[in-house]
């Protein structure tokens, strides 16, 4: 069992959770993830590590309640425990001094872009961050992002805060304004990462995305997370999760992520039934 040290909401349905996991805290690098199980009959789900405190032996995860397991995790308060957490998994982000680096986070992807933005800054890059949310109340890590960025932009789809529009529009504006951009990291929903790849492709700007396929073990033994990169099969859990955005087959990734949609609904509705039962 792994103890939850703190658990606080950052926005509606998005929680920042600090978990005791000394081995992971000591080893983890930007871009890596964990697999965790909330309960003994729980499924294994991948979550990227947002931060760690090696002294305290804790890691931080930022979790959006999307389905049964993430909602169950978000219900846990400080002092409770989860069944299993293993990591750090995946290949760490490739960090160097590229020059000017843009880190783009969409939605809860901002939490994943955050540790890499820190690493890019530490490597001497001029760091620009663009963080997108659907609306103002879903903006997370604004202050943290400002602290690690030379320039920080927030975009909202509805214009309720910051720049009115998508992250790709802001990126395009930066490029159009003649800024020299050497590296782009994009993390968020598949359509957003795909759109960023299309913005940078004509300019030949090196662009990396962190992929989010379905995973089971997260250690390379099942191939459930395989993705097509440059026409070749790669396992995102060991070869990635970060890949060259201009070589990723996003359509295939989106297709494969849909395989269990009906089962996920069934699982979540089962959870609702349980709640009704408890209330009787």
């Amino acid at each position: 069992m792994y103890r939850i040290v703190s658990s606080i909401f950052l926005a509606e349905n998005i929680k920042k959770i600090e978990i005791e996991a000394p081995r992971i805290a000591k080893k983890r690098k930007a871009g890596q993830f964990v697999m965790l199980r909330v309960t003994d009959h729980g499924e294994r789900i991948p979550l990227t590590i947002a931060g760690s405190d090696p002294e305290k032996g804790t890691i931080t995860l930022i979790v959006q309640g999307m389905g049964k397991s993430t909602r169950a995790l978000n219900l846990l308060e400080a002092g409770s425990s989860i069944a299993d957490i293993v990591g750090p998994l995946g290949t760490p982000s490739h960090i160097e001094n590229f020059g000017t680096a843009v880190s783009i986070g969409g939605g809860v992807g901002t939490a994943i872009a955050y540790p890499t933005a820190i690493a890019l800054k530490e490597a001497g890059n001029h760091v620009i961050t663009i963080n997108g949310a659907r609306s103002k109340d879903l903006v997370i890590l604004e202050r943290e992002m400002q602290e690690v960025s030379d320039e920080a932009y927030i975009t909202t789809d509805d214009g309720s805060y910051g720049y009115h529009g998508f992250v790709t529009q802001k990126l395009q504006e930066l490029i159009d304004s003649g800024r020299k951009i050497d590296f782009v990291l994009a993390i968020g929903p598949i359509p957003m990462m795909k759109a960023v790849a299309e913005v940078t492709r004509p300019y030949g700007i090196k662009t990396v995305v962190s992929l989010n396929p379905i995973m089971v073990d997260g250690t390379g033994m099942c191939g459930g997370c395989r993705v097509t990169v440059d026409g070749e099969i790669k396992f995102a859990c060991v070869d990635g999760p970060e890949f060259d955005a201009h070589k990723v087959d996003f359509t295939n990734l989106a297709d494969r992520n849909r395989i269990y949609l009906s089962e996920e609904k069934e699982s979540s509705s089962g959870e609702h039934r349980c709640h009704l039962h408890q209330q009787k």
Partner: protein
Amino acid sequence: MAIPRQPMPAQDPNVRNRNFKEVNLGYTPELAMQEALRCIQCKDPVCIQGCPVNIKIDEFIQLVAEGDFLGAARKVKEDNVLPAVCGRVCPQEDQCEKACIIGKKHQPVAIGNLERFVADWEREHGEPEMPEVKPPTGRKVAVIGSGPAGLSCANDLIRQGHEVVVFEALHELGGVLMYGVPEFRLPKEIVRQEIEGLKQMGVRFQTDVVVGRSVTIDELIEDEGFNAVFIGVGAGLPWFMGIPGENLVGVLAANEFLTRVNLMKAYDFPEGSDTPVFDCRGKNVAVFGGGNTAMDAVRTAKRLGAEHAYIIYRRSEAEMPARAEEIHHAKEEGIEFLLLMNPLEFLGDDKHWLTGVKCIKMELGEPDDSGRRRPVPIEGSEFTLPLDMAIISIGNGSNPLIKQTTPDIEVSRRETIVVDVNTMATSKENVYAGGDIVTGGATVILAMGAGRTAAKAINEKLMGTAASHDEW
């Protein structure tokens, strides 16, 4: 020989292909004693040489014949830490039973069935009695991987008085015994209980630790004070066929399918497990391959409600690597064997879901390097088979994590770890390896044998070569 080999009672095929309960029901005491009488107690029991961990087969069978089932179980445990597992999953026909003298003229003694019987008897009736553990030596050994190789190595080392810590990447112990072999062949509770015995002897287990990621081998030696390391991480990296359409939705590796069903209990979704698996009910499911993993996968698909559950294999039944018993069980359960057929391409719909497979018929030509007759395509024999799910079971390679993070361990061209076969020592000082990570995909009992060999060498290294020779 007056007494015929006693058959193993089993669930009815048309009942068991709808449940996940164990197929084989085990011997009764009467059947076991009857079978034990068939052993002629050879002066030179060659069956023992046929067993990779050299169980004292003649002695334990004699005890069964006398009705001392607990005594027999303890005799087996002197050499085998997982008798209830091995009695179930070993290919005895290629090992102990192949060597049995009776087998020259009649059916060999059912050594596997008897081993299983005594282990089950002890678990159900006896106070589990642990083998003696020597006083602490003050030496620490890290065992990486809790599969058969690691467990058997840990068993021998703890009994020599060393401190043993087993590191396991998954949340459950047992390796392939937990995620690979299905419940209907090997109930998971049995694996847990056999591992419990190791805990009682003092072996410590750390789950959720991926060596190569959570900690490296060098850190185990330098920072955590381990005097030796045994690598038993298996061959768990699934191979794909590299044919068009393999990334369609509905095409998956047997490892993923079996891990979902066995380890994550997806057959109990959504009530008892949160892990989903492809809904096989009324569907056409094909498993590509002819090994034990393929049989496990196809029989699992049938149990999940597949209308048609096919084995598609490019050679004939004679070349299948799967155990004869498993092929026989599969056929009884209604598995359809499509032999001498090779897939060329997976076909999908406009949403990229699998709809079928294009295959070509094969015929057998001259023997190849492996000694098996090489399958050759028959020109113009292509056909299409409608499919909803395709499970790839053509073998596994080595996980690259250890190689990537410990470059001073020599690996072969096939990425298996290179060892001295007498000691299982790797090219790195005080680091040993055994099981599938050395041989490529093989059997549970061969991995256990390798674990024993390594434990012996590790013990000699830690204690000084001469000291412990007569102890073994």
